[in-house]
């Protein structure tokens, strides 16, 4: 496969395999909302509120949560489509936007695939031109960019001779999403953010695209941030999963540990909300009542306490920090740290780590 004439140093692994590819520290992003007739009484949506996490090299981090939990806003800030209000993003140890890693160099290494395959392609460009556009902007000679586009098309399962000259409206949803994936890969990124990238696809096509994503990850040594509301799909594709609720991280851990033994009551409720697919064991009771509250005025203390079956007085007074149950599994719930004041919290630090 031909390599682009992008300066090789930019793509080199700098910090070694042990250093996270992406480090996010205390990231916040808010939006002001208009209220009242003349835009007065305005509030502020704290869409992402002091969120910290790492994305390790070569892993897939799944991000789940309901509408308003801030998962898409987080993705857009990571991608540089929105500016964060506060916090820090490090890419392979370098601050994004610093002299060592200017924004332009960062953007080349981080690409995104969106849910709506149609609106994320220019309707007036052929598929081939769309894929070659990004490299062109970054100074790759046209002929080389086109050759690269065609080889990527072949790689995502679209025969270049048949598909290169087509326009987006001439493709099916699954085919368009393959084009979007090829386009994201055209700049040889190291991190690909997939924001509900398979959610709009038919089930029979979704499986094909998930398999393709796994193949591409192996072949190009990619790292994924995979955002989805479909827990089955997230479990299948992710090495680790981060659960968000109203702009904060509720729980983060290795996929199987988190699915087998969720430690945050919200994670547990989310998991048991999944339809069972067993006609003899239908869900008898909804795990949670009501809708997620609005992120405009999030509840004080633990944001989940308004819907939590275990909520006690302390939950509305104290905001839980992420508590480390083991090196790889953390959750923000007052039932976990010893001495938190919640009656279910363990008495001793030793008891907290089982």
């Amino acid at each position: 496969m031909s390599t682009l004439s992008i300066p090789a140093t930019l793509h080199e692994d700098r910090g070694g395999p042990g250093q996270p590819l992406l480090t996010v520290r205390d990231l916040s992003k808010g939006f002001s909302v208009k209220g009242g007739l003349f835009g007065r009484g305005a509030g502020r949506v704290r869409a992402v509120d002091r969120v910290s996490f790492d994305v390790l090299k070569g892993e897939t981090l799944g991000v789940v949560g309901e509408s308003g939990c801030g998962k898409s806003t987080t993705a857009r800030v990571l991608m540089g489509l929105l500016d964060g209000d506060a916090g820090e993003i490090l890419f392979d140890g370098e601050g994004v936007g610093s002299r060592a890693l200017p924004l332009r160099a960062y953007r080349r290494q981080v690409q995104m695939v969106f849910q709506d395959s149609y609106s994320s392609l220019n309707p007036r460009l052929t598929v081939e031109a769309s894929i070659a556009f990004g490299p062109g902007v970054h100074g790759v000679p046209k002929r080389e960019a086109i050759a690269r586009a065609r080889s990527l098309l072949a790689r995502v399962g679209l025969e270049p001779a048949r598909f290169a000259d087509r326009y987006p409206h001439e493709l099916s949803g699954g085919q368009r999403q393959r084009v979007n994936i090829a386009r994201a890969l055209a700049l040889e990124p190291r991190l690909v953010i997939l924001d509900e990238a398979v959610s709009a696809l038919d089930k029979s096509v979704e499986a094909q695209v998930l398999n393709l994503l796994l193949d591409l990850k192996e072949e190009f040594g990619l790292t994924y941030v995979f955002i989805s509301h479909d827990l089955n799909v997230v479990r299948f594709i992710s090495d680790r999963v981060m659960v968000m609720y109203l702009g904060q991280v509720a729980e983060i851990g290795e996929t199987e540990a988190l699915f087998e033994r969720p430690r945050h009551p919200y994670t547990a409720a989310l998991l048991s909300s999944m339809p069972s697919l067993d006609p003899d064991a239908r869900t008898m009771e909804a795990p949670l009542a009501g809708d997620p509250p609005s992120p405009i005025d999030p509840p004080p203390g633990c944001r989940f306490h308004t819907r939590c079956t275990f909520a006690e007085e302390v939950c509305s007074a104290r905001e839980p920090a992420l508590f480390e149950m083991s090196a790889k599994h953390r959750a923000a719930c007052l039932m976990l740290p010893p001495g938190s004041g919640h009656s279910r919290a363990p008495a001793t630090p030793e008891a907290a780590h089982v």
Partner: protein
Amino acid sequence: MSDALVEVRDLKVTFMGGARPVRAVDGVDLTLARGEVMALIGESGSGKSVTLRQLMRLNPERKTHVEGSIRVAGEDVMGLSSARLTHYRGAEAAMIFQEPLLALDPVYTVGAQITEAIRRHERVSKADARARALALFERVRIPSPERRLDAYPHEMSGGMRQRAMIALALACRPKLLLADEPTTALDATVQIQILLLLRELQRDLGLSIVFVTHDLGAAVEVADRIAVMYAGRIVEEGTARDLIRTPRHPYTIGLLKSRAHGALSKGSRLEAIPGSPPDLANLPPGCAFAPRCPLAADACRAAAPPALDVGPGHRARCIRTEDAAGLLMTQAA
């Protein structure tokens, strides 16, 4: 008469608007007993929503060519006069949609919309209609219903709006509820609440429900029977248990096997169905699934297979159902 509430026979719906006529529904037979919940599942373009809309005669009549018969409670729906149709929509059959924000009128309160619907159909006073609207809100478990009746649709959360739309649909005590992907746009924790609500309403009010979805999981949660559609035809139909445990059509089997489910070992691949859904304007002469089917033989490509009984109340449109059972076996291995 039988106790069937809905009887659809050889329904064919063809859209004439485009450059070429598109047959979206191609010979659908459906029988729904009173108090039964049937899920129609399928991918986009499979004809599930078009079938549902035709039960309400919502497809644009001038651009649609419809053949076959639809009887609901013994009445010929296709032959209804416009006055009878107005009565039928609401009092006999009612529909709920995926996006309540689009289905509800943004400039009237939800309570006003429900009382209006009631008073269009029955001679009752405003106060009585409002009392019924309030009872409906309680019925669909909207918290502080009195206050919520005076809310506009945009003031409600997604789950609440869906409950309000269900209340509106039930306003004139229909026997048949048609649900077009009513939980698809909802969050997971809200979706299960609405599915349970539909189940409860069905049980308490003796409703018959046709529930259209692309989500097998949601279908299993609410439906007694499931019909799987592909390219305008029902390719397999049976009880939810039959469909999940002993599917006989290669497409149903493929759908079940391609699902990401449970703890699959890391790095494994899903057993995807190859190819893409067919172009309705350009269907192959035989079985529409043949180009993607691992069992397709020459006979499959020659003529569309008839619906064959594979068990009591369990039918599949496939001539190779015995071999298809073998496809399922490889799943366990």
